[in-house]
């Protein structure tokens, strides 16, 4: 366990993670099933029927996942290479600068970043949501890539050079694999941020489960609101769980 100096949904303890690995998906399945049973067994009026039906629920969930997926792909494609570059000796000086920018960026409220991008670009839909959310969810992966590469034991790098590995070989065969646990932890945090923030995509016509919450609130239909909120929660917990599973099984076996 380490003390926490940045946002992360990982509990930081192995025991806790084991509990969550088992309990979290069960809670999600039960909670979502109960909510849907409750909603569909109620006497729904026309407005409610318009929003709560299998087709629209699936569309909203799918849109939500689409935004989240695009975000996470953008994050990985941008943050990992950037982190690698910022730890190379020739670019090291730039690292604090980029981290400072990213940290200030994350101090900005997600809703503000999203709305501003929408107002300035005039775009709407998937990309209007995905780009600013990616920017907002970038920091955990970027920071963990940098820290993960920096904490690789220097003597190991020298040993790798000493047995005749070229610098790209050292990067891909030694440094990156050893940084994988931290990068995965960052990815899990980014994933949770992405799925959470994707509920706001509805405000820029990006669809998603936020749409149901917004509709329920504006149309004063509690059933719609509750179904949207519970589905969004379930999705987030599920994605976090996937992140935890990935953290557990994708790390190199030789590392604890």
């Amino acid at each position, binding site marked *: 366990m380490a003390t926490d100096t940045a946002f992360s949904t990982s509990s930081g303890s192995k025991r806790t993670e084991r509990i969550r690995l088992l309990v979290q998906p069960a809670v999600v399945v039960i909670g979502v099933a109960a909510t849907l049973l409750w909603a569909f067994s109620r006497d729904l009026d026309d407005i409610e029927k318009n929003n709560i039906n299998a087709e629209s629920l699936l569309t909203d969930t799918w849109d939500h996942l689409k935004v989240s997926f695009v975000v996470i792909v953008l994050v990985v494609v941008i943050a990992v290479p950037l982190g690698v570059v910022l730890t190379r000796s020739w670019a090291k000086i730039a690292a604090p600068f980029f981290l400072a920018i990213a940290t200030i960026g994350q101090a900005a409220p997600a809703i503000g970043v999203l709305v501003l991008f929408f107002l300035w670009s005039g775009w709407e839909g998937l990309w209007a949501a995905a780009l600013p959310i990616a920017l907002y969810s970038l920091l955990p992966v970027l920071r963990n890539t940098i820290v993960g590469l920096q904490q690789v034991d220097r003597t190991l790098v020298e*040993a790798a050079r*000493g047995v*005749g*590995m070229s610098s790209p070989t050292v990067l891909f065969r030694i440094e990156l694999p050893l940084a994988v646990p931290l990068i995965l932890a960052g990815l899990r945090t980014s994933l949770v941020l992405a799925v959470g923030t994707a509920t706001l995509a509805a405000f820029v016509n990006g669809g998603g489960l936020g749409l149901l919450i917004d509709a329920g609130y504006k149309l004063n239909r509690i059933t719609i609101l509750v179904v949207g909120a519970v589905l969004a929660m379930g999705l987030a917990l599920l994605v976090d769980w996937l992140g935890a599973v990935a953290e557990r099984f994708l790390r*190199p076996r030789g590392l604890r």
Partner: protein
Amino acid sequence: MSETTDQKISGVEIELAEVTKRYAGQKTPAVDGFSMTIPAGETIVFVGPSGCGKTTTMKMINRLIEPTSGQITIGGESALKIDPDQLRRRIGYAIQQAGLFPHLTVAQNIAVVPGLLGWDKKKVRDRVVEMLDLVGLDEEFAGRFPRQLSGGQQQRVGVARALAADPPVLLMDEPFGAVDPITRGNLQDELLRLQAELRKTIVFVTHDFDEAVKLGDRIAVLGNQSKILQYDTPEAILANPADDTVAGFVGAGASLKQLTLMRVRDVELKTDLVTVSTEDTPADVRQKLTNARKTYALVLDRRNRPLRWLHVRELASAGSLATVGRPVGDTVSVQSTLQDALEAILTEGGNAAVTGGRGEYVGTIDIRTVTDTIQQVREEHENDHENSAGGAG
């Protein structure tokens, strides 16, 4: 690779000429004009205080540190003209705490260099098995990860990795520095055994002079800026340190350390002791002792192995030789070091029985033999510095 080349030297000569390392912003060079010839197939140990530049000097051989000026020749080829990565694949490298890659299995760690050299998979697999066997590890270790090994086992894998591509040269940077004394002793013995078999050119860095004495064919005692204070055999350095700094580094007990370098078979044994068999009668023994003008005899068993010390006084009350006398406590073999012999002499009280390969009595060694031998070595090396000053350059 040729057949049965166990005794053949597989190492090559290394020559460093006026090698200098100067770091930007530092007034004095870290290594200043280092010149040395390292003969093929020998183990050379760099010893010196920490920060003297011994590790820097070693790392310039495989160019982990690039020399500022000077020439390095390995097996007749200029090391500075080869691509550094290619160069390093031909030089084994073992470091403190082994430096094993924690995310790779033991087998994968050992296979790193053969893999880089593009060996085919089958050859690499065979080689891994061979290397594990060479460093005395079971084949079952192949699939384990470094964290599942003890420190000593990790070091063995480190050595196996360094030797995997059969490099003629092996650089070892305090490889046994981080393990407990008992394991370290074992690893040192193991390295001696390996080297007797492989005859690589080994450059070994340590700050432990005893380790240097034990492992080195030659020792280079280094001072600041990697200045060579003395470069000679361990015997010569122990017998006659070049100056006070070296003497300080050799430390107290140089003569005692000298004893660890010599074996009982190298000295002349005494054979004038009266030996008797258990079948002899007390009267026979008395007669023998009187003839030889001695007061005690050594009783041997039927296979000529030493059994008991017998004093003439004890004969009076004895009926047979089966039980009488003081049991032999400590014997030494011809393989033992003089240090072991001295220990036996001290416990036995002036004289120790020496046994041969099958435990048979071959003679005795006493304190006089030991002191004479030390004296002799000292005299041999007394005039070293006049000679070596010109030679080592």
